[in-house]
């Protein structure tokens, strides 16, 4: 991450977050990401803890934290079974 004294204009491309990368720099930003297995696993872990600490690990967590996960799971399963569900539509010609 950028050290404390640097102003944003001099931060290197590699350390920028996605929303701060300019459009022309996008290919070089993507190529500089860590695509090794441990890098990908680290990305999943970071994403998991970001969601967990925002919605579930709070003092008065509500049911929406886990409902969002289940809704995503339903959508995901629907995408995977679309191939079979295609044939069950109410149409004259399939």
């Amino acid at each position, binding site marked *: 991450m950028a050290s404390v004294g640097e102003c944003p204009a001099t931060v290197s491309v590699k350390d920028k977050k996605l929303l701060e990368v300019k459009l022309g720099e996008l290919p070089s930003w993507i190529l500089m990401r860590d695509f090794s297995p441990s890098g990908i696993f680290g990305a999943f872990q970071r994403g998991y803890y970001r969601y967990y600490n925002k919605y579930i*690990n709070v003092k008065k967590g509500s049911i929406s934290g886990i409902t969002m996960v289940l809704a995503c799971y339903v959508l995901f399963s*629907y995408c995977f079974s679309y191939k079979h569900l295609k044939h069950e539509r109410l149409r004259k010609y399939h």
Partner: protein
Amino acid sequence: MNENLFASFAAPTILGLPAAVPIILFPSLLIPTSKYLINNRLITTQQWLIQLTLKQMMTLHNTKGRTWSLMLISLIIFIATTNLLGLLPHSFTPTTQLSMNLAMAIPLWAGTVATGLRLKTKNTLAHLLPQGTPTPLIPMLIIIETISLFIQPMALAVRLTANITA
């Protein structure tokens, strides 16, 4: 009607690869662990439920019998979450596959029978004959009890499969 009768029971695939493994691992994401005494609401609810079932199951056992509690509670949690997640629309329930239920039933059943045979051989063999049978029936009953003993894992597995599939 489906193109064949078994289309609705097919395991999900991604481009031909079995996608069952991520789906079986998904319930573990919903059960977080914690190293604190006082936790968020999700973990507290789950811990309360687990303690409720554990006390119901394990108060009747002695110290040695309670060594089974981890195995049994994790089994209960796995089957409960997997089956409940299967109630969501379009989701896939791994326990509808007979292969998975047999994989759970046979080792557990064999473990209990083998432990019983090794540690308390006389009692185990004595169980094969119910109390108070008339003498002429003894040979037949021993065979019947042996067969019923061996059918137990099949019965366990098929019971879960059929009920969840329905």
